[in-house]
């Protein structure tokens, strides 16, 4: 038996993950692009930036599998694909299966000498609908397979943004979507709290070596997170929060600022879980260690039309839930387990 770098074993052979050291500063980032012109994403689309930086970080020896969503429909118009690397569509709920299948296929035919044995990055991406809703089961299964090197990246613009902004399991509490419009009788149609995808996957998949959150307002960190995820071996998962001008209803010029505010207000904690060790990253680490002050969520919420119907009471409730995440969770910002029962009192 051979012991794999990722701690798994195989009776046959180990396909090594690539070695991708972090980019040491923005000037060291290669100029070459692998996600280029030809797409028709919205102005200010942060998910398009995710695609661009994800594949820039991965480099040319990469296969990308994209499940249905904005980043499929907007990026691959026939005859004007924006992908320089090989790219294949996968079904809405199949990012986990796509990554697993491609990685297993490459592993088998490399082992048998049917193609050249070399590290090839396998990345499957999904939106929050494809990932946190429909694809959760397959992503979960894939993260339990230590023998395949792959990355699943969930670009989370917090709604089914491609199909007209319908709420997903990753849409924040109270947000106005086409399936949760504020009305004359019911101000808040969407009472569900956003799924804690990265934390859930980290807690539930003890052999998965690397799970992280990113946000393209912190692009260098995001790219180096992708490089680490691809190098560490085994299946990995990255959850990116992507401000979406169309779905969140704001001026596209604010995308970058909203991405920063999500972190600065403590709504979107940046962290990585490597071999079970939790590390808060960047601005989130500064907030947690008291070096930076956590801003009120009001700053973040009121810049977005999707929360325009919020009353002060709604904002206070939202703030309370974020405070809870930082003050009550046993692993603040990551795992919502706590020491004692607390009542939840959403506004009427």
């Amino acid at each position, binding site marked *: 038996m051979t012991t794999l770098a990722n701690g798994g074993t195989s*009776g*046959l052979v180990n396909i090594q993950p690539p070695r991708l050291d972090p980019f040491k500063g923005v000037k060291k980032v290669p100029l070459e692009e692998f996600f280029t012109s030809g797409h028709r994403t919205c102005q200010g689309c942060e998910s398009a930036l995710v695609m661009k930086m994800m594949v820039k970080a991965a480099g*040319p*020896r*990469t*296969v990308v*599998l994209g499940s249905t969503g904005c980043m*499929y*429909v907007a990026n*691959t*118009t*026939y*005859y004007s*694909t924006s*992908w*320089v*690397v*090989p*790219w*294949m*569509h*996968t*079904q809405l*709920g*199949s990012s*986990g*299966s*796509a*990554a*697993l*299948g*491609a990685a*297993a*296929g*490459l*592993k*088998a*035919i490399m*082992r*048998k000498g*049917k*193609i050249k044995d070399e590290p*090839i990055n396998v990345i499957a991406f999904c939106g929050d609908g494809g990932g946190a809703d429909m694809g959760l*089961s*397959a992503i*979960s*299964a894939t993260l339990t*397979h230590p023998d395949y090197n792959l990355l699943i990246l969930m670009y989370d613009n917090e709604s089914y943004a491609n199909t007209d902004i319908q709420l997903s399991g990753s849409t924040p509490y109270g947000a106005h979507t086409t399936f949760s419009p504020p009305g004359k009788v019911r101000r808040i149609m969407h009472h569900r709290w956003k799924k804690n995808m990265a934390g859930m996957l980290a807690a539930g998949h003890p052999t998965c070596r690397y799970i992280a959150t990113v946000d393209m307002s912190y692009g260098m960190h995001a790219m180096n997170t992708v490089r680490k995820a691809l190098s560490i071996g085994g299946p990995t998962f990255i959850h990116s929060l992507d401000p979406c001008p169309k779905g969140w209803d704001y001026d596209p010029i604010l995308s970058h600022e909203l991405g920063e505010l999500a972190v600065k207000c403590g709504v979107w904690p940046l962290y990585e879980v490597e071999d079970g060790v939790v590390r808060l990253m960047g601005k989130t680490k500064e907030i947690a260690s008291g070096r930076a002050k956590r801003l009120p969520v009001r700053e973040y919420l009121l810049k977005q039309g999707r929360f325009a119907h919020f009353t002060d009471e709604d904002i206070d409730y939202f703030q309370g839930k974020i405070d809870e995440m930082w003050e009550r969770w046993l692993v603040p910002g990551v795992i919502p387990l706590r020491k004692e029962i607390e009542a939840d009192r959403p506004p009427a």
Partner: protein
Amino acid sequence: MAHATATKVEETKGADKTALITGSEAIAVACKLADVDVITAYPIRPYDTVMQYVAKLVANGEMDCEYIVAEAEHSQFEIVKHASAVGARVFTGSSGVGWMHAFEALTVTPALRIPMVAMVGNRALDDPGAFGVEHNDALAVRDLGWQLVWVDSAQEALDTALIAYRVAEDKRVFLPCAISCDGAFLTHSQALVRIPAQEKVRAFLPPYDRAKLLLHPDNPITVAPQANEDWVMEIRRQNHEAMERAVKVIGEAYADFERTFGRSYGNPFFEEYETADADVVLVGMGTVSTPIKVGIRELRKEGKKVGFVRVRWFRPFAADELAATLSRFRAVGVVDRDFSFGSPYRSGVLATEIRAAMYPSAKRPPVLGFIGGLGGREVTVPDVRRMTESTLLAAEGKAQPPTQWIGLRE
């Protein structure tokens, strides 16, 4: 009949072996012989026995493949779809509602030109709970671009699996193929099977070469982009043309199979039994052939000239050839182990297809539909007698109901 393409059958070392194995095990052995690279399993009776045999082959080091236990059938088919896209030979399968759980993946696989080979252990689409055979599971994909073949013995299951890889991976085709094996009657029944020597299989089945469609950094293509109304019609047409070419490729594959392995299946698309002098024939798919053939032997002793046509390839459907053959008889009784609710004449799927195929024929004998053996109920020799008698009456011009349920508790 098409002609063989191999210029000569290479001298092969190693002898065939004979083993007492089930239909499922025969397909597992075929996967080993075909050197399949990636296999995905998920439990559902009765197909899943094939995956139990594969697991043993892998555990014992007799087979080198990535053997992945998926978390659902949808993932089973999506995993191998992507493995095939990067150049791996793949195998998977399912039964009944498991096959239906994978339906979205099944739908897209032909359009992606993925030569996946899958086993369907045919099973009723419960509810209500039923493990037994029905053909509605595999037939549900009949309009989607899958090649569909039914077999009726463990030997034919093994041989057809090898043929399926050969046909599916032919660049003229590049379409998936599902091999239907009747649940229990074939998946779980043992028979003596000749297992061909590895060298013969190597001579018959070239390596999978995805060529221009390979998903690899050396061939950076974009697969399945947004084509919409601009191109979807042309792409559907290409799929249709591939299915058309499959007719010829299937013929070549069976001819080469005979030259390589020395076993002949005659006409690849359908088998004829006692048809030379028959007045009427029954038509069916799968293991219903056993009671029908036994019944025919009894009826012939009584002087009734009855034959049987067993359809193997349902897609592509050999409409012209079947129509030409069936128009020789005075009446045709189609035995469907499936049912299509609300369909023309409230028939089974096969009966409807046969009626459609025969419509342009100059000579059109009456075509009766029989629904039998649903949910795994046995089709018995007395059932065969009843169906034959009705078909004989139709041949004599005595009106019969277009569809009759056989063996139904009234």
